[in-house]
């Protein structure tokens, strides 16, 4: 029993410690002397690696999720004779929840894991140390552009995801199943509010982007410098990132529904 409590305490302490270390790490990454002219091209390069290369998976999954939602929604709404509400159903579920959450999970799997592996490998092969020996701060040169690229890319990816999902549901609902296009769009427009639904969805995306990228660069930077260590760090990025997204989604949703 005592042992059990002791273990619990140790886990709690190490958790607090890692939160503290990663928080310090984040603040040291973000609050740098602004050398924007130098940072900008580096961020562009990383947006390519983090954002543009994630486009394919985001567009494809957005398309399929929109199509599936339309199909499922149509089947259920048909029982109530309310198929003209299909647009509203798909739009609200995609813009409010599915877009940010699924987009975030895909981002953690695609971009987060590759960020962790890349930084971890740079750590193992002493590239970060040698950079430090050349009097170039790796936090500034390596971590900071990747962090900003992730933060910028995520809302963009989620906006694209939502748009493609709407297009997919339009294809299935209107072109295939024959819902009236006018009703599809006008019901959607009547129920979706830009400020409450779209902006809040993108805020969720921004928060997920910050958290996932933070976890990814932290895990990479502090990866145990062995092959197994990098493997574990990559796994941790995906697991912690996904859990953080789902947990934060609940918190953010409750805050947003609570009249925010």
């Amino acid at each position, binding site marked *: 029993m005592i042992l059990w409590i002791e273990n619990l305490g140790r886990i709690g302490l190490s958790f607090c410690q890692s939160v503290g270390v990663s928080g310090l790490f984040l603040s040291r990454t973000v609050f740098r002397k602004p050398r924007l002219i130098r940072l900008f091209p580096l961020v562009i390069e990383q947006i390519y690696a983090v*954002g543009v290369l994630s486009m394919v998976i985001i567009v494809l999954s957005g398309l399929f999720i929109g199509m599936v939602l339309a199909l499922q929604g149509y089947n259920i709404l048909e029982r109530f004779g309310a198929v003209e509400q299909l647009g509203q159903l798909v739009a609200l579920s995609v*813009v409010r929840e599915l877009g940010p959450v699924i987009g975030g999970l895909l981002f953690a799997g695609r971009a987060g894991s590759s960020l962790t592996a890349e930084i971890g490998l740079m750590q193992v092969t002493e590239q970060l140390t040698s950079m430090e020996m050349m009097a170039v701060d790796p936090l500034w040169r390596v971590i900071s552009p990747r962090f900003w690229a992730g933060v910028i890319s995520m809302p963009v990816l989620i906006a694209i995801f939502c748009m493609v999902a*709407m297009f997919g549901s339009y294809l299935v609902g209107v072109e295939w199943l024959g819902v009236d296009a006018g009703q599809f769009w006008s019901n959607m427009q009547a129920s979706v509010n830009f400020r409450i639904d779209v902006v809040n969805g993108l805020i969720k995306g921004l928060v997920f982007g910050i958290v996932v990228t933070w976890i990814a660069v932290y895990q990479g930077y502090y990866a145990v410098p062995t092959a197994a260590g990098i493997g574990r760090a990559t796994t941790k990025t995906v697991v912690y990132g996904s859990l953080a997204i789902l947990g934060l989604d609940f918190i953010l949703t409750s805050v947003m529904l609570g009249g925010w």
Partner: protein
Amino acid sequence: MLNKRFIEILVGMFMLAGIIALFVLAFKVSGLNMYSSKGSYHVSAIFDNIGDLKVRAPVTIAGVRVGEVSDIGINATTFKATVGFRVDKNQDKLPADTTAKILTAGIIGANYIELIPGYDEVNLKDGDVIIDTQPAIILENLISQMIYKIGGDKKESN
């Protein structure tokens, strides 16, 4: 290793795609349209009960949308609801004795405001208040009234 210029172009296209997506979400999906203070004027109306009326609900004349609700508040002394709404600048010939009504789209649809123009020579202008209004019809009140009436009828017949 890709050409630097190529990467920059791709990133630019990526950001552009994001902005386009945002516009699509704003205008196609959420039907955002700008009733900015420039192209419209602000009128308010005082209601006994506004039911389920929400900010951004449509304001119509004869079923045609001419504006939207911009703010909802309550008067602290009279305990009546004050609803402010913006009306399109083109509709500047509304008589001052126009009345406002809160209606429901369909049986369970959303509430909206219908303006019924009067016959006054003077026109409504920015900042005017409409006092002659008809409150929202609350389904529960209607049902309870009906039950009361039916009960009363029965008593009388007894």
